[in-house]
């Protein structure tokens, strides 16, 4: 069968080739060349993704089998790629945003040695490869390959500046927390394989009715554990803020736009399983909401520009999970898309600021950057408006859809979600005002050095800003325009099985208008309040107190984990190593040796060299034999 989508394998292979070239020839390549190769392969992938996307849009989907990965009597796992609506959308996001970030990086990382520069691009290409594998895989195993692959790249890129041990610790933490999630994912896959005999999406989804409720709940809960690790949800979210140790474009690509949304992709992909497990859905909604609130509160009090964005990412991911939990799959995927645009924009803008400030990340030392960097300023403002959910920017549409879904499920979800949206508007404009408005508060040297960034940085910013503004227009809700939700229509085939199972609650138009008005109005008030308050911000030395202190210390969650998990494990390990192993098992074994040694030394004393003694023993022995012979043997 020849299908034009057969060329889909080129999409992940191109970044892999880029990785190999940059990785192997990193000593020979000049910076320009490795930058060109690194970005070029992604651009080519993007072009093919566009082609694929339009094919899929015309109704052409494809499942390609390349070769058998594991094929035994009990299980067959093929190296399969599935190209359908959902994956083609993600392909566009990954390669599109990925390309812009590659271009951005050529300028941002320009101060590195050419060897390290090539290394950076090879890692970045490897990441894109893994991410593409993740979304293109035709079964859970291939998805898992990408799943761990992106974790590895995240590890490598967070620890990119490996001289700094704090960065290495952050990288390690990210990898280990991801592995905890991965264990959940793996167990879910084993469960699926044991019950259905396959890991292929289409077969699993076709046989889903054969699974008992217990099985489905177990499987989905474990899958969700995997998602909490990768997508930084409670309880495994603490790695993401630490991951800001990596270069800023990495944060934009991996820790905002793509990798952290893998969990959402996975759940959206398995939507039928989750729809059939209402308990899990409830858990997802609650965890998502709790994460959204928790991260938003922490973001209120952070002073590191990247940390604020990191917590905002965690919070937005919480939103997406809320959407998944209430069954608004399209809304979540929609929010993944818009979030990719505006959060990548914000991170890249923050990178531009950090670049201009010569590596300074503390917002308290910024201020008044508006007049020095006008493009960064304007694009950043657009990003802030988008994330704050101001109409008609993209964030408004996607967030609104999730909130509407939440309201239909349970108004309490909606209320908490809206509260989080207010906080989002507040901390984003706190960030904006402290950075761009008011007076410059840094050192004189820094002020002298301030400049607008070069074109390789500003052009991606401009493109992303445009996307952040118009990106939401593919999903205009029914109330505004009939047939306006083009995305929902596009994704319909993917979510059709779930939609068939649950009847949609349609909110009346008046309710929907009220909901929108409340969320936009509240966010606007929070926004203006923050604008007003923090544009006049002055540095104070007074330490935080009360709830502010708890928030700026991130609810002491890291300390809590340290006390209840890390330290006990270390203590048990030390106990095993020092006591049980050395004194216990080895002591027992050596004890046997010592006992034999001691016994031999005692018995040796009989061999004293006295002839008389030997003879006496001999006689006694013969006597004993006589006695045995005479009395004991019958």
């Amino acid at each position: 069968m020849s299908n034009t989508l057969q060329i889909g394998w080129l999409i992940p292979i191109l970044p892999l080739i880029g990785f190999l070239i940059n990785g192997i020839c990193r000593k020979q390549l000049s910076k320009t060349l490795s930058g060109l190769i690194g970005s070029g392969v992604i651009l080519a992938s993007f072009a093919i993704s566009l082609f694929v996307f339009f094919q899929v849009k015309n109704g052409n989907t494809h499942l390609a089998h390349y070769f058998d990965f594991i094929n035994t009597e009990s299980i067959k796992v093929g190296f399969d790629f599935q190209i359908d609506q959902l994956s083609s959308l993600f392909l566009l996001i990954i390669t599109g945003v990925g390309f812009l970030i590659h271009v951005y990086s050529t300028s941002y990382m320009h101060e590195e040695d050419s060897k390290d520069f090539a290394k950076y691009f090879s890692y970045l290409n490897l990441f894109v490869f893994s991410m593409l594998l993740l979304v293109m895989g035709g079964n859970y195993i291939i998805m898992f390959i990408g799943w761990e692959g992106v974790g590895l790249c995240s590890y490598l890129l967070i620890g990119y500046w490996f001289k700094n041990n704090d960065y290495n610790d952050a990288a390690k933490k990210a990898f280990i927390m991801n592995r905890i999630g991965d264990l959940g994912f793996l167990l879910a896959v084993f469960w699926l394989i044991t019950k259905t005999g396959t890991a292929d999406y289409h077969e699993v989804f076709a046989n889903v009715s054969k699974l008992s409720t217990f099985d489905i709940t177990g499987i989905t809960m474990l899958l969700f554990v995997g998602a909490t690790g990768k997508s930084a949800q409670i309880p495994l979210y603490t790695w993401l803020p630490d991951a800001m140790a990596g270069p800023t474009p990495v944060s934009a690509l991996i820790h905002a736009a793509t990798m952290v949304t893998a969990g959402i992709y996975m759940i959206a992909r398995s939507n039928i399983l989750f729809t059939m497990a209402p308990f899990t859905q409830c858990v997802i909604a609650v965890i998502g909401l709790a994460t959204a609130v928790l991260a938003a509160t922490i973001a209120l009090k952070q002073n590191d520009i990247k940390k604020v964005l990191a917590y905002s990412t965690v919070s937005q991911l919480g939103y997406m999970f809320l959407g998944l939990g209430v069954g608004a799959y399209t809304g979540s995927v929609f929010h993944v898309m818009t979030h990719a645009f505006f959060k990548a924009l914000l991170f890249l803008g923050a990178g531009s600021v950090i670049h201009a400030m010569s590596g300074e990340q503390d917002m308290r030392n910024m201020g008044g950057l508006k007049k020095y960097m006008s493009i960064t300023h304007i694009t950043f403002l657009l990003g802030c408006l988008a994330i704050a959910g101001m109409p008609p920017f993209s964030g408004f549409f996607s967030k609104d859809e999730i909130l509407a879904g939440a309201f239909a499920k349970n108004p309490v979800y909606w209320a908490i979600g809206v509260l989080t949206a207010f906080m989002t508007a507040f901390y984003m404009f706190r960030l904006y005002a402290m950075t761009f408005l008011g007076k410059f508060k840094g050192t004189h040297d820094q002020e002298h050095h301030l400049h607008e960034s070069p074109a390789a940085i500003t052009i991606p910013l401009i493109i992303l800003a445009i996307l952040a503004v118009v990106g939401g227009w593919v999903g205009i809700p029914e109330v505004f325009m009939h047939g306006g939700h083009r995305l929902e229509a596009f994704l319909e085939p993917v979510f059709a099985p779930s939609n068939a199972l649950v009847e949609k609650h349609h909110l009346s138009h008046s309710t929907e208008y009220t909901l929108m008005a409340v969320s936009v109005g509240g966010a606007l008030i929070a926004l203006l309040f923050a604008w007003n308050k923090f544009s006049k911000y002055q540095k104070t030395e007074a330490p935080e107190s009360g709830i502010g202190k708890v928030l700026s210390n991130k609810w002491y969650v890291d300390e809590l984990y340290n006390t209840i998990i890390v330290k006990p494990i270390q203590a048990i390990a030390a106990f095993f190593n020092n006591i049980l192993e050395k004194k216990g098992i080895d002591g027992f074994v050596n004890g046997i040796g010592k006992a034999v040694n001691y016994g031999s030394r005692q018995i040796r004393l009989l061999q004293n060299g006295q002839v008389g003694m030997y003879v006496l023993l001999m006689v006694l022995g013969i006597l004993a034999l006589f006695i045995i012979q005479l009395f004991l043997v019958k």
Partner: protein
Amino acid sequence: MPIYYYIVLAIALFTIGIIGVLTRRNAIIIFMCIELMLNAVNLLLVAFSKMHNIATAATNPTAAIDAQIFVFFIMVVAAAEVSVGLAIIVMMYRNTHSVDVNFLNRLKN
């Protein structure tokens, strides 16, 4: 004479030999005691042989002299043993000016 007499005599000789070996320290006396023990056994062999010869002569005339042949073997071995043993004792006397076996524990070092 009943076989019983021979057995008692042999036991007496053997016991004297054992006690002598165990209690005396003079190598030559120990040697003589060993000879006593061997001869006690020889005596028994001959006595039993004679007894069996009477019992089985009619059916199997050659069977009964086995034990007497054994006695010759033992004598030969004993003679060999004495020659080697006495040689050792002579060497021992040359080195230690004593025939006390307890001196032999020096071998240990």
